């Protein structure tokens, strides 16, 4: 499928803005991108289909995202002293499905993650965004799926949204 280039451009712009919000630790603005029942999901397995009967690295609704973003700003969040810094590059943005109610966007990412006194960590994988809304200005995230290339590996802790 070759999507409308303007629509692809708008989708890429949407993802770039989302990346900017995350790298800027603007959690509340980022969370506002989600639909009311939108989910943020980082599977534990490659090709994982089921987030309910199988563990995940993250599977967070609005309530759990709210706790995470508040915790990151808590004075006594010991593992955020100092805070996690990230810079990410999002590319290979493609609209892979589209209907009257929304679209599915696939992309690849590289995230460099760093905390003072800790090793810098490189994360990589693919994003799949299910966006609902009929026009770019109305898009909301119904599902953000983050497939890490090392999802089933040995992990250091994750703190911020990927």
């Amino acid at each position: 499928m070759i999507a409308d280039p303007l629509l692809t451009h708008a989708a890429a712009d949407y993802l770039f803005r989302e990346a900017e919000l995350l790298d800027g630790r603007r959690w509340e603005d980022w969370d506002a991108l989600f639909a009311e029942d939108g989910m943020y999901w980082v599977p534990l397995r490659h090709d994982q289909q089921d987030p309910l009967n199988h563990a995940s690295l993250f599977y967070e609704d609005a309530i759990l995202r709210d706790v995470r973003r508040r915790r990151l700003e808590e004075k006594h969040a010991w593992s955020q002293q100092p805070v996690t810094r990230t810079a990410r590059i999002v590319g290979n943005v493609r609209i892979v499905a589209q209907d009257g109610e929304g679209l599915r966007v696939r992309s690849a990412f590289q995230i460099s993650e760093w905390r003072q006194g800790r090793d810098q960590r490189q994360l990589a994988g693919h994003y799949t965004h299910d966006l609902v809304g009929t026009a770019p200005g109305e898009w909301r995230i119904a599902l953000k799926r983050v497939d890490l290339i090392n999802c089933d590996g040995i992990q250091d802790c994750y703190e911020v949204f990927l």
Partner: protein
Amino acid sequence: MADDMLAALVRPDKVHKRVYTDPAIFDLEMERIFGQAWIYVGHASQVPKPGDYWTTLIGREPVVMVRDRDGAIRVLYNRCPHKGAKLVADGCGHAGPLFRCPYHAWTFALDGRLRGVPFRQGYADTGFSLDDPQFSMRPVARIAERRGFVFCSLAEDGPGLEEYLGGALASIDNFADRAPEGEVEVAGGVMRVMQHSNWKIFFENLNDTGHPQATHESSFAAARRTVREKLGGKTPFQLHIIEGNGEPNSFWESLELRCYDHGHSYMDAIFNAPTDAISLEYRGQLEAAYGVERAQAILSMNRHNTIIYPSCSPHTGFQQLRVIRPISIDRTLVEIFTFRLKGTSDAFFQRTISYTNIVNSPSSTVMVDDVEVYRRCQEGMASDGGDWISQHRMAGHDTPFEGGLLGAGISEVPMRNQFRAWASYMGEAVA
């Protein structure tokens, strides 16, 4: 290091920092503790069919747990007796009817016995024999299974598994008893988290009632604000399990800490049994299977983390098992397994998964602060700012009973109990 020097590192109310920072002591631990104690290897449900295998570590020894053709579970060193290559790749898989080395194609029966070698004529008159055990995969010295939980000991002699576990045995039985069918199975994936700290620090934390209010302030405070500002004061299950760490002093003081010989212990549950529709349906299933009285007895054994020293920690109420693998003096791998209680609903299992995701995932908003303080301990211990690690909280107030020690809720008795076992493995018992 001389044994009397080792014993001097452990005092009744403190331990020397070297036990956490000295690589030579780590080497001795691998030999004297992990080479002797019963170590959790895996669960029978991970190898349902003949040829299925699961690999793990006993101390530094890579082993493979495999289902033999006769249905028995074998645990073998994952090592080809020819060139030493690990015979199977790490993880789980299926060997087929035989293990076959990827290097020179030696083949072994599922009980480890050598079956064939290519170029047989080259072995004539060399002293080589198919029947000589030195050319077979070596089995571990002892293997024992309880309710599907498989433990091994690399030592020929020592107490049997049941005697070794003492009062911790009831946690394993209760884990399986909680299933209406009396059996559990590993399900829903395994998580692996690397801690940048010594393995003993993690064990000490598991029954440390003094830490939740301080360490976990960020997550329970955030959860409370979400409840107040977004949920009208109503706490859903998923936040209940985060908020529990914020209970006041009086709550922790009211708990009981029961310790057993060989380093085991448990603390009372910190979450009350939920009374929602899923939990009530589950209780009904348990009553139908066991009768009301027995079901009540099973559910009333409500333990938070049980410590099975030095290899694992079951949480029976939410069907979790954390397996602890020391990698080096300052690296510890923790593997988190989730279990399904056979005879329960998908909805029940989905709540178990929710607990795994929230409390035991590498992204847990609770666990990140634990892992951070463990690392700070490891870094601080290396300094010359002091030599001893305090375990004074309620020291001298432990109440002995047959086979163990009882402590009040805020006592550091589980740590003292672990080091009582540690010293006994490593050298002389602490006076």
